[in-house]
């Protein structure tokens, strides 16, 4: 049948039936097959749907006949999947891509690539997520597409939705885990999105960010690790070495700059912490390893509680968690010590869990808890699980070597075990006792004698070998017994296991050297037996020893030193945890568990010596308006000062200023640096002068000063405009409307902490409008407030005209009803309306009250019990004195200081603006930077939130 007839005939499927029935083995069919496939391809590629349908029908028919149509595959795929890829429904688009990308045939690589690229810029985040999932599939199908795929990954990394984040990082990890540079710009976004990403994505992101942080930030424990090293060295090094070391370290310590944590590093730690509460064990473990590898020593402790919680989970989870805890306890024993009892062993635990718990308990043992641990171990020895008993005995041995105080107690206990009925127990004890005796053999010759007697009964080869070694090594302590033991052993030599035979030869050699009179013949007998042994190791050993110890005329120079060779003082064994040094693998990883590098494992880099440029993480225009939850927004605002510290970034606070400045035409080099003050008209002469001086100074210094000045100057200029306002100290500005979203209108607000005169129950909010456009903005006013019940708002008077480049400040009052709920309203200009909301930090909901010390105590006495919240905290590095504490507390909350007799205490008082409830705050400082914070307030919610805020302020 000709191709053209097929084209024309609508029922070609049935018409061509006989054709397919031909003998497939004949050559003609094959050649025509090829031709026909070309036709079909043409039909599939054509624009007419009817032709495509026809081609498809024929292909299905061919498949039904068992013909090979695989070369038509891409053409078919293109028609089937690509149709759906353009479907208006996002779910169908996503599924089509999923199906397409799951076809593992290299021929469709180009189609797949196209589809992925298209989906990566799809409107629907779900489709973009599917695109991210398809990337590793294509990569494994054709690694040559890597470069193009990296471009797609880069694009998807910039995505701002939580749905995509986890999947794209997974693709990143699989395709290009070494391209750390792609993360910079997305780092902060990933940190902020993390809490809302689905749980599996969280694990992948956290693991990746751990690696990232190791390359970008400084070791937060750098100073401590130096100190640690020095103390460790001092323990081992001899005296003069030690002195030198100390000098060198002292010099190094002096050279070190005080460590300051990068705010981005802090951001990561802060945003991962809540995930310790996840129900997913993998997420908890991921956060735990992040803290272990990245957090300052003082903060790592918080992970212990969460890890201990995981021990309640399935036994497989327990197994993995315990492995990681075992590694952690070696470096940071302190953090698990409070949870010692959680590692106590139950008879129902599986043996592998028991042994891991034992490992942890052994690592946790120290002088103070050893007696409890040993008592616990004693009950373990009576267990029915013999493997576990053996491990317990070893654990006792390790405790004894590590903690000198209990060595004798342990040894006595182990000796008692020698009379146990179970041979395994005895054998294990012998092995452990041997190791312990090696540390101080002189005092324990009676134990050695006791063990010599055991040789008659114990059959376990390892134990027999240990006893023989002990007797040989310390034969001088048991001069009478040793030759007799050798006699017995010579008798049974041929029936012994290999390790025992080797030790018999050893014993013989040592006795020959010390007491040849009694043992010469015995030794020769043993050596003769060994000479004809089946095992070549034993034959070799016998030959070697004979040459060394038995003097002949031919014997070499070495035999003179035989005594030194055999009876040299041997160093005592160190009983180490098998988990020592495991932490060079990233915790929680498969490689760590196996203690071997798994395929695709990414090494955890060492901390850099000096931090790489942090400005790489700055983002051009931070899109604050996108964040969804209230809390998020608040947090980001707190971050503002960090971000705005560097150039190029447009922290919302300054962006408005720098814009207006460039308009004023001051010289370009310093424009961005001094933008904060450049354009303001009320500037005094003094300031201008100081600016000129600054121009000669280093850029960085300038920038700092500028920041300070902006802070200080703004209130000043405001007070010039509105005499009612006289803000105290530094006041934090919050953004109400970003100039981008406001189309040139930038609005900021702050809590001026002044009484709002029209209504004393309202909080005064000072709002500053800046017009960054080139035209006037008119009729600025508020509309449609949407408030929680009870909340009230007093609008500011409408601003009729705001000229281009001008700023104006007004005050409005809001009664927040003593809650931190946001007040939502519309900000209207003559052309536009913007939805905005003001959310007060809890500290702004109060106003100072002046109390005497006695009044304070009296009032505090009334607010006890439920109304008192008390927390312990560690003061931040900078909270060195009372002054700083007062400054921090008053910056956090609008409170006034209450005079106080003690210099260890700072007291503050205030009342809530709306209902006038008293708020009393006490900070008691203790030694070593610890402190106690107490808040008494009738409103418990306010109290709790205030405690949190002040804690944060003081611990920074």
């Amino acid at each position, binding site marked *: 049948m000709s191709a053209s007839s097929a084209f024309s005939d609508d029922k070609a499927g049935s018409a061509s039936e006989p054709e397919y029935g031909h003998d497939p083995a004949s050559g003609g069919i094959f050649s025509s097959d090829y031709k026909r496939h070309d036709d079909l391809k043409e039909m599939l590629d054509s624009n007419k749907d009817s032709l495509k349908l026809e081609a498809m029908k024929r292909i299905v028919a061919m498949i039904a006949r068992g013909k090979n149509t695989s070369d038509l595959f891409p053409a078919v795929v293109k028609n089937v999947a690509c149709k759906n890829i353009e479907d208006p429904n996002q779910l169908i688009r996503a599924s089509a891509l999923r199906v397409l990308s799951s076809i593992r045939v290299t021929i469709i690589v180009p189609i797949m690539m196209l589809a992925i690229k298209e989906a990566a810029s799809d409107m629907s985040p779900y489709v973009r997520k599917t695109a991210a999932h398809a990337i*590793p599939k294509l990569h494994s199908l054709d690694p040559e597409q890597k470069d193009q795929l990296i471009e797609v990954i880069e694009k998807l990394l910039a995505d701002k939705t939580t749905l995509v984040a986890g999947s794209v990082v997974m693709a990143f990890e699989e395709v290009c885990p070494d391209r750390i540079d792609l993360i910079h710009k997305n780092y902060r976004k990933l940190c902020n999105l993390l809490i809302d990403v689905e749980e599996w994505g969280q694990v992948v992101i956290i693991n990746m960010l751990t690696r990232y942080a190791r390359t970008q930030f400084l070791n937060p424990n750098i100073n401590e690790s130096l100190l640690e090293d020095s103390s460790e060295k001092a323990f081992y090094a001899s005296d003069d070495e030690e002195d030198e070391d100390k000098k060198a370290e002292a010099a190094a310590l002096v050279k070190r700059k005080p460590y300051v944590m990068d705010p981005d590093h802090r951001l990561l730690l802060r945003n991962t912490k809540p995930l310790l509460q996840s129900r997913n064990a993998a997420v908890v473990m991921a956060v735990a390893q992040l803290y272990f590898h990245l957090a300052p020593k003082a903060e790592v402790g918080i992970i212990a509680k969460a890890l201990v919680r995981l021990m309640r989970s399935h036994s497989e989870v327990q197994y993995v968690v315990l492995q990681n805890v075992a590694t952690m306890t070696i470096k940071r024993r302190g953090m698990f010590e409070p949870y010692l009892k959680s590692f106590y062993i*139950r008879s129902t635990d599986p043996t592998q869990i028991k042994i891991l718990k034992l490992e942890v308990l052994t690592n946790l043992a120290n002088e103070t808890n050893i007696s409890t641990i040993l008592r616990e171990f004693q009950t373990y020895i009576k267990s*029915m699980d013999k493997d576990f008993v053996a491990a317990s005995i070893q654990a006792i041995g390790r405790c004894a070597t590590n903690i000198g105080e209990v060595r004798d107690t342990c040894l006595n206990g182990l000796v008692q075990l020698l009379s146990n009925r179970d041979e395994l127990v005895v054998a294990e004890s012998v092995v452990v006792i041997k190791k312990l005796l090696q540390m101080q053999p002189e005092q324990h010759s009676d134990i050695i004698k006791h063990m010599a007697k055991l040789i008659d009964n114990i059959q376990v080869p390892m134990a027999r070998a240990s006893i023989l070694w002990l007797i040989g090594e310390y034969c001088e302590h048991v001069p009478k017994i040793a030759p007799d033991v050798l006699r017995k052993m010579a008798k049974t030599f041929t029936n012994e296991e290999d390790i025992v035979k080797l030790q018999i030869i050893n014993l013989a050699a040592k006795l020959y050297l010390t007491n040849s009179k009694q043992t010469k013949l015995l030794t020769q007998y043993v050596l003769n037996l060994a000479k004809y042994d089946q095992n070549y190791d034993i034959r070799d050993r016998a030959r070697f020893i004979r040459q060394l110890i038995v003097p002949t005329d031919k014997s070499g120079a070495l035999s003179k030193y035989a005594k030194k060779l055999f009876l040299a003082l041997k160093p005592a064994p160190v009983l180490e945890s098998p988990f020592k040094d495991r932490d060079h693998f990233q915790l929680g990883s498969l490689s760590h568990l196996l203690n071997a590098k798994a395929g695709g494992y990414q090494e955890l880099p060492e901390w850099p010596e000096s931090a790489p440029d942090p400005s790489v993480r700055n983002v051009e225009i931070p899109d604050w308006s996108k964040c969804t939850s209230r809390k998020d927004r608040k947090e980001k605002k707190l971050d503002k000062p960090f971000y705005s510290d560097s150039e190029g970034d447009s922290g919302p606070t300054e962006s408005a200023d720098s814009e207006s400045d460039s308009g004023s035409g001051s010289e370009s080099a310093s424009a961005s640096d001094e933008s904060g003050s450049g354009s303001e008209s009320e500037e005094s002469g003094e300031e201008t002068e100081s600016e000129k001086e600054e121009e000669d100074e280093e850029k960085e210094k300038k920038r700092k000063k500028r920041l300070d000045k902006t802070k200080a100057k703004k209130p000043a200029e405001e007070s010039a405009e509105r005499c009612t306002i006289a803000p105290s100290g530094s006041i934090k500005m919050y953004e109400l409307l970003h100039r981008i979203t406001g189309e040139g209108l930038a609005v900021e607000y702050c809590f001026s902490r002044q009484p709002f005169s029209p209504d004393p129950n309202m909080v005064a909010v000072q709002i500053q409008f800046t017009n960054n456009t080139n035209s006037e903005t008119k009729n600025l006013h508020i509309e449609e407030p949407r408030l929680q019940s009870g909340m009230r708002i007093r609008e500011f008077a409408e601003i009729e005209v705001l000229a281009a480049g001008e700023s104006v400040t007004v005050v409005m009052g809001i009664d927040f009803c003593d809650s931190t709920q946001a007040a939502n309203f519309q900000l209207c200009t003559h052309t536009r309306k913007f939805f905005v909301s003001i959310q007060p930090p809890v500290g702004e909901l109060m106003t100072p009250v002046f109390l005497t010390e006695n009044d304070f105590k009296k009032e505090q006495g009334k607010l006890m019990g439920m109304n008192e919240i008390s927390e312990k905290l560690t003061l931040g590095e900078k909270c060195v004195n009372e002054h700083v504490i007062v400054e921090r507390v008053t910056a956090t909350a609008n409170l006034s200081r209450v005079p106080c007799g003690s210099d260890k205490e700072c007291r503050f008082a205030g009342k809530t603006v709306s209902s006038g409830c008293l708020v009393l705050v006490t900070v008691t400082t203790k030694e070593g930077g610890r402190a106690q914070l107490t808040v008494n307030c009738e409103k418990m919610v306010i109290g709790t939130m205030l405690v949190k805020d002040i804690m944060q302020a003081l611990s920074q």
Partner: protein
Amino acid sequence: MIHSLFLVNASGDIFLEKHWKSVVSRSVCDYFFEAVERATEPENVPPVIPTPHHCLINVLRQRVYFVAVIQSEVPPLFVIEFLHRVVDTFQDYFGVCTEAAVKDNVVVVYELLEEMLDNGFPLATESNILKELIKPPTILRTVVNTITGSTNVGEQLPTGQLSVVPWRRTGVKYTNNEAYFDVVEEIDAIIDKSGSTITAEIQGVIDACVKLTGMPDLTLSFMNPRLLDDVSFHPCVRFKRWEAERILSFVPPDGNFRLLSYHVSSQNLVAIPVYVKHNISFREGSSQGRFELTLGPKQTMGKAVESVLVSSQLPRGVLNANLSPSQGTYTFDPVTKLLSWDVGKINPQKLPSLKGSMSLQTGASKPDENPTINLQFKIQQLAVSGLKVNRLDMYGEKYKPFKGIKYMTKAGKFQVRT
């Protein structure tokens, strides 16, 4: 990530396999079988088994091993947690997750596995999204499917995948709106020989069954939230709200879910509701041993202790036990040496006891080991930590739901050493 999955039953047969990337030969499981053989007990099979080219990560649930094949670095807990999630999903769908249940529903099982992982990376693990995609089997649907040849794949598109609250589907409707919460606390304890407590902890969970129309927003507050020392939440709980106000605020998933699990701070003394008086002794040279056990209530806050079950692994040397219980029934398995005594309810007026003798192998010496006694019990209407729910409020919907809260205390890992 996860390459393949094999399901292996207790007798070592692979009865289901699923591959997400290329096909891995069944022979990879030989390494697993070796490990099973090496381990004396099924529970002692190492969860992670390295082989030359792959790594096998397995979990054991209801006598079925779920063996995942891994080819490159992946956090082991990630895989373990996922496998448990698979089992939980199967249980949710079929009621149980036994070999028989999997075989009966093999089509649904494959459909589920296909949706849960995409190229080895978890895709949809939320039960409500899955249920939208694949309908759980019911008798009626199975009958219809066999006749019409249709499958359980849902007709509608799974919009839940796009939702910001992926754990709840939209358009839920009930005629009776109800929300039930069970506060269940378990006491984990080790009691030593003399009856003093070595360690005792309370672990609690709040399980919920919520059948509410629409998109309700619930808040649950406690009288004494400070008791909760360490908590982990269902993803629906707003963490910040808890941090700030100690209030659980959430849009609940539809149906049954675990809202919260918590640990009660260890500073608080734990009330131990039951005491055990025991005298288990073997005399030297005699082939008899004495066995006496008496249970009694202690610190039960006036509530009855029910469903008491005592079990103990006796030493290997014990041949048989000849005991008489004052109430309930006991069994002794001479092969496994497991003694179990189903006591029932403890009556404070007449304390339950189990007394008698044990016969030892003749000639065998007195066993060194002391058996431990494992206890199970239940106390209704009591949360032993004293935790109390203050109130439950609903926002966002107009109707009045029916609300209920139930408390219960159980023994967790409760052991008495002798």
